[in-house]
């Protein structure tokens, strides 16, 4: 059963959201989804960019002014 895990990076500045995302994704199984909560505009750019480069399925959603949710489905 694929699971969804939330990673709260609100109030964290670069590069902490990215490092936390890398670590959290390591713990997950293929097919699981990690939802990263971000309110730092540079993390909104580098977290999806890194995940896509790794070959994961990525979707970025703007939930409010300056707040994003990055959905990363682990592909490998």
């Amino acid at each position, binding site marked *: 059963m694929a699971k969804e895990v939330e990673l709260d990076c609100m109030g964290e500045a670069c590069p902490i959201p990215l*490092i936390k995302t890398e670590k959290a994704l390591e713990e997950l199984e293929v097919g699981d989804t990690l939802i990263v909560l971000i309110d730092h505009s540079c993390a909104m750019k580098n977290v999806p960019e890194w995940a896509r480069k790794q070959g994961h399925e990525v979707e970025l959603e703007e939930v409010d002014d*300056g707040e994003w949710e990055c959905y990363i489905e682990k592909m490998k």
Partner: protein
Amino acid sequence: MKAFFEKIKNNDFYKMWFKDALPYVTGAVLLSVFQIVTFSTTGNPWGVSGVFANWGAWLFELVGGSVEKWFYFSSPGAQATLEAGFLNDPGTWRNLGIIAGALFAAMMASGFKIKKIKSFRQVIAAALGGLLMGYGARIAFGCNIGALFSGIASLSLSGWVFAAFMFAGAIIGSKLLVKYFM
């Protein structure tokens, strides 16, 4: 306001100019162009942190202090800038413009948000980092703009030396960050 952004949200020009980040190359070209504009209009290459030292001096004078005897402000050029005053300094207007422009850009991308402070540790790190950067920028006579960008653009070796040590500092800083914030 919400309705206005709702209306232009899917407009291609809005996305290109305001919503999406500019490509790095576009940013680099714009920075170079404005460096040239700055140099030709003010006679000095672009600098940011030196202006803050002047702001500090004017603030100090405002509360009755005097920096006349300070070695840092002892050159005739520095004295002339301080004498001319806050509003007559091109650097003042440039820095105010950077702050206002950044605010405008964030608002136009509907990305403005007042963030919560996550921990006391974050406050300490931010204050400590700010003080060290400010101090370092003054004893190096420039920050990553004045010493690095303007230095290299002036074909000065000091800019490259600054780059090498800034790179080393960034590595050490990243290690400390992972150690204390992860």
